[in-house]
């Protein structure tokens, strides 16, 4: 482990703006930020010329596999994919196959920690993501858990959800919720609309999400709990959340990179790499979401990284699992296809998510801050090749596509885990 490194020659990009400076890292924290620093003995130099130095990305919704899902992903492969994507912190979801619904389950999950990325654990809201009992929110909070979610599934028992929100509202908890009303279009495999009608696929209507968001906003108002709607996919749902936040409710929302790029028309080839949850929506929704991200109304972009085996993605479209790997490509997609400025891209991929997880100074690079950093070439282009993906699964929706924004170095806890685009493992 290199105890000290000097990130030299770059432009430091933080919420406060850009400055030309070197960044000296010692013992896992930022020691000094100033122009003209020179390396002492035993200091590793990371060249950042023609690049920006930024706080590492924070991914709120990667699925990292876990016990029993090793054929899809392990914490090792997920951590590497994250590091190559400039991600230094992930919020590990409670997943149906391995719910983090007890302190024991939390400990078991903690034992699988990746060496290449910080992991923050999301507690389950309900025991087993089920309809019956609350997970031990207080006990988990006492262990340092501040984020709660039943993964990508909505909590269907509304009594239980309301109680969780009330109980958690005094624990400093943030609830990461999936908005869809599952009864509407249950079993549908794409957006209900013109394309589902033509393709003969059962659709999931936009109103399932809109009603789900309305319900969450009402519960937010009732309970005062902090709610982040993980992945909105419709313009109307995003507008509802943004409006409620402006009116003072403690609510915010995020999107995924793929919902900012693809539309339901992209399902027309029955390519299972275009099957997502929530489903891809029409162009008007995509464009409105991209605008809301660009304007700062939507505060986070999460990769929604979902590794699946090649075999499962060769099932028919209506049977294949939803989702794609994306933690390694999220930055390249929002800088490339979506065309966001680096400031906005980092705001939604790093600073916004960091604040949501309780780091009020997220994005700052100053002495004493943790040395979780990424060095990025915002205008460099690269083409996604399956062989370059570190994830155990190769189900990328962006295979073969040219993205913009190359991660040159990633530093996690002061250790350079990616140097010149190469993983140090």
């Amino acid at each position, binding site marked *: 482990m290199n105890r000290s490194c000097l990130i030299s020659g770059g432009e430091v990009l933080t919420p406060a703006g850009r400055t030309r400076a070197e960044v000296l890292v010692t013992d896992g924290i930022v020691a000094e930020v100033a122009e003209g620093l020179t390396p002492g003995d035993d200091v590793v130099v990371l060249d950042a010329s023609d690049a920006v130095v930024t706080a590492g990305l924070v991914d709120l919704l990667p699925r990292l596999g876990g016990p029993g899902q090793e054929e899809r992903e392990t914490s090792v492969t997920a951590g590497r994919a994250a590091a190559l994507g400039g991600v230094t912190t992930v919020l590990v979801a409670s997943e149906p196959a391995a719910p983090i619904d007890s302190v024991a389950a939390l400990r078991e999950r903690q034992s699988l920690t990746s060496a290449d990325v910080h992991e923050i654990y999301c507690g389950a809201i309900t025991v087993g993501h089920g309809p019956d009992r609350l997970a031990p929110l207080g006990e988990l909070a006492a262990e340092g858990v501040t984020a709660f979610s039943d993964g990508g599934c909505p909590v269907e028992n509304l009594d239980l959800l309301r109680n969780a929100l009330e109980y958690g509202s005094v624990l400093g908890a943030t609830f990461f919720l999936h908005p869809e009303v599952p009864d509407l279009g249950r079993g549908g495999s794409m957006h*209900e*609309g*013109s394309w*589902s*009608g*033509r*393709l*003969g*696929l059962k*659709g999931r209507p936009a109103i399932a999400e809109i009603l789900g968001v309305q319900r969450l906003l009402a519960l937010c108002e009732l309970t005062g709990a902090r709610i982040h709607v993980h992945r909105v996919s419709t313009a109307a749902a995003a507008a509802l959340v943004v409006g409620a936040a402006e009116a003072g409710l403690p609510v915010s929302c995020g999107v995924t990179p793929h919902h900012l790029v693809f539309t339901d028309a992209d399902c027309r*080839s*029955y390519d299972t790499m275009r099957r997502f949850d929530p489903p891809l929506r029409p162009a008007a929704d995509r464009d409105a979401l991209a605008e809301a991200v660009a304007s700062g109304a939507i505060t986070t972009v999460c990769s929604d990284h979902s590794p699946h085996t090649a*075999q499962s993605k*060769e*099932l*028919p*479209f*209506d*049977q294949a699992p939803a989702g794609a790997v994306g933690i390694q490509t999220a930055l390249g997609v929002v800088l490339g296809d979506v065309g966001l400025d680096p400031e906005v891209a980092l705001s939604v991929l790093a600073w916004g998510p960091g604040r949501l997880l309780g780091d009020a100074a997220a994005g700052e690079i100053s002495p004493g801050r943790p040395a979780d950093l990424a060095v990025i070439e915002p205008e460099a282009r690269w083409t996604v090749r399956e062989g370059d993906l570190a994830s155990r699964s190769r189900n990328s929706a962006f295979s073969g596509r040219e993205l913009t924004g190359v991660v040159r170095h990633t530093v996690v806890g002061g250790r350079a885990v990616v140097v010149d685009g190469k993983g140090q493992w």
Partner: protein
Amino acid sequence: MTHLLTLEDLGDSGIAEILRITDRFVEVGERAIPRVPALRGKTVATCFFEDSTRTRMSFEAAAKRLSADVLNFAAGSSSLSKGESLRDTIETVQAMGVDAFIVRHRSSGVPLQVTNWVDEGVSVINAGDGWHSHPTQGLLDAYTLCERIHGSAGENPSLDGLHIGLVGDIRHSRVARSDVVAFTSLGATVTVAAPPTLLPACVREWPVTVSHDLDAVLPTLDVVGLLRVQQERMDDALIPSIHDYVQGYGITAERAELIRGDALITHPGPVVRGIEVVASVLDSHPNVLVTRQVTNGVAVRMAVLFWLLGSGVDIT
């Protein structure tokens, strides 16, 4: 063209071309020995991942009358039940030496997926996928109407000026989707009549008129195209009951009176008598084309196989 997946892919000129070729195979079918050597040495595999005896037999008859060899794969009796993947199945059958796959699957889009797994030059023919497409049914329905009206498809197959109604479960019908493309391609006007819950999303973007008043529509129709309504739609709560459906959209004895005497009646089969149509209509109306549809189905499928696999060969 290598594959036949949808009639949209085929386009107006392709549809007309297949119907012209069908004329010649209808003639072959009337011979004492209804067999030609056109596809001698070719092998076609029927891969039916969803049960369908009728369509499979029709394709098999078509291939055999073209002197092709036929391999039959049926999901029920195969290693699919042992967990073999669709792709493995296709690749295994292909390894036996196959020029065309005829694929049916309960999931929309599977024939298109299969095209990704076959070798270059190997054809995939869609024999019905989910709710999506059933191109040979659309072609045989169009052919049967052309034949009845003009005696044959002729040089310029046309259903110009014809008002065709499709009645029944449009939403879940691959036949309806293919019929609409075939009929409108040939100049017909199409009305679909069904309760709103049995219509596809955004059907108003389709080149059809939508009606919920079958009694008003029936007397205006030159062709009444009946579609199946399956019991499982009731289980999905898309209709309150079969009885309720029949009251609004079934061809009851009273409603049958509204069908013009010179109108033609089609049905893709199998007919569920009593639900979509009372038995007496099928048995007594002079212009029920159901049997002719089945006969022409073989000729249309011969035309499709010949068109895809028989380049440069004479039909003789």
